[in-house]
């Protein structure tokens, strides 16, 4: 299958610091990709470049074969939706208002069913009429997730490619909603969307992803299936910890438990 999103030798510099160093990646529809790595590895920066929000100093990003810079914001919004790490709203928009914002300028009768289905899917129907300013962090995160899913669905109904980019989407969610969100993301991927998400928690990444890209100091350390990437050697090389990556059975995703840590030599830089 041909790639929908390609990063060709992108570099991002901030002052004299290299945030991303000649990154080459390509993604095909249906992939569930986790970006992992230590703090400051460039995960969020890479996501912002892929979203078209940050222009790389060198290299280019192609969406469906065309350079990202040639897309208007409106056309880009029909192709990809982005969930940022933290969104603060000071005005009392209701949850339903916020989720509807994802629908863009399409007619309400076409999108209202999508809005309602998404609210239901995310367990938000009871909160729909509440002001988002009164909700807890996790509830707010779910509301924004719903907004992004509505944008994805509405973009696809216009023939967009369906790319979902998320920066630590499971932040401030409880365990049940974390797993629920991963389930929804996996479902979107099997329906043909490309889902790329930044994760801090390697276990959540491993449950979610069909492919994990490990970043370290702005470079790709390794890239592959969870059982190829979440390994003892990667943990030592990238995170600087001596820990065993385990598997429950041969066919399930690998997991890491801090309890198995033998000795901490140095913590991430």
């Amino acid at each position, binding site marked *: *299958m041909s790639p929908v999103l390609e990063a060709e030798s992108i570099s991002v510099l901030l002052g004299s610091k290299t945030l991303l160093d000649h990154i080459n990646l390509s993604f095909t*529809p*249906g992939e569930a990709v986790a970006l992992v790595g230590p703090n400051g590895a460039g995960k969020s920066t890479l996501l*912002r470049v892929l*979203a*078209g*929000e940050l222009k790389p100093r060198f290299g280019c990003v192609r969406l469906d074969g065309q350079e990202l810079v040639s897309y*208007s*914001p*409106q*056309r*880009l*919004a*029909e192709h*990809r*939706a*982005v969930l*940022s790490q933290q*969104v*603060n*709203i*000071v*005005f*009392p*928009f*209701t949850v*339903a*208002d*916020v989720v509807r*914002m*994802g629908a*863009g*300028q399409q007619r309400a009768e076409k999108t*209202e*069913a*999508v*809005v*309602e*289905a*998404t*609210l*239901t899917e995310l367990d938000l129907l009871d909160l*729909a*009429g509440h002001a988002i300013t009164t909700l807890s962090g996790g509830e707010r995160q779910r509301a924004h997730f719903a907004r992004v899913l509505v*944008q*994805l*669905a509405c973009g*696809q*109904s216009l*023939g967009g490619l*369906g790319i979902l980019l998320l920066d630590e989407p499971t932040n401030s969610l409880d365990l049940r909603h974390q797993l629920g969100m991963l389930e929804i993301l996996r479902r*979107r991927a099997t*329906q*043909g*969307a490309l889902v790329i998400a930044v994760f801090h928690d390697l276990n959540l990444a491993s449950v979610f992803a069909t492919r994990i890209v490990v970043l370290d100091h702005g470079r790709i350390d390794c890239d592959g299936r969870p059982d190829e990437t979440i390994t003892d050697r990667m943990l030592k090389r990238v995170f600087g910890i001596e820990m065993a990556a385990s598997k429950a059975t041969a066919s399930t995703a690998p997991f890491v438990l801090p309890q198995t840590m033998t000795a901490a030599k140095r913590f991430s830089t």
Partner: protein
Amino acid sequence: MTARNAPFEVTARHSLPRRGMSSSAVMVLMVGTLIIAGVISMSIGAAGIPPGRLFAALFSAGGDGTLTARDHLILFSIRLPRVAMASMVGALLAAAGAIMQGLFRNPLADPGLVGVSAGAGLAAAAMIVFGDRALQSSVMGWPFLLPVAAFFGALATTAALYRIATWQGRTSIAIMLLAGLALGALAGAGTGLLVFLADDRQLRDITFWMLGSIAGATWPKIFAIAPFLAGLLLSTSFVGRGLDLLVLGESEAFHMGIAVERLKRFLIVLVAAAAGAAVSVSGVVGFVGIVVPHLLRLVIGPSHAWLLPASACCGALLLLVADTVARTIAAPAELPIGIVTAVVGAPFFLFLLLKQRSPLAL
């Protein structure tokens, strides 16, 4: 890939809550109230015109009977311009406040409070002093020059404020308020300097207008700011969705398809046009831009498509009432309208500030 185009197969069973439903009703109610308030305001004053005579005077050509002729004169040269200008200035200020609050993503932005009006005032004062000399005649006789000068003053201040307070797409409320204070002080110092340079007649023009008053309402001034108000009202229908999305943050607005830089530039021009036009005819009248949008958000919700026209309407009503109070409460003397709006607005602003005192807000 096959299911890509049909991710959802659900139809709406029950409609979701939509607070915006009552917006149109609120709008109609406010327009009605504005008209009634306008009629009442026209009939009261130093020379009372009872409603019965009011309509006779309004619709006669001014010929039949001395009483009607006198009423006609008072209405058309004093009351009507005053009512119209109070409403227009109120509309401009409230809409400018609502747009600024969306642009700066917080409910404490107001052209009077963060130095935009002061910047407009400086430019207008400069026009009075220097333009006067250059044109060899009183600038007050050139009513179109003042709004234009005030617009550029407001534009410079708003743009500077935005550059200072916004960093990487996020706006700091604390920096915005403090920078606004500094810019306002700077503009105030500039205006003070101009007062020194001004001759007596120019000084009268400057002081009159620094006090903040609707008392100088004349038809030429009304015609001078009318295009600004018309432009503002027309633009509100285009910027509503963009402002809603901008409230989530600049990155989010971009992710959702807004050309953020273009929108921001346009909003800054709108704010400057509205605040500049208002300041050029009435001086600095504070707090209208804070009180009105906040109250309306409680009633019709924060969605800007309705909030902006509703703010204009409610601001018109508020300033009309305030001006009527200002000119009748101590008749035949007149209170400066700035006192009336400050007495209502300043405690309200403090209340908002206290309500915002959470770590999230600042």
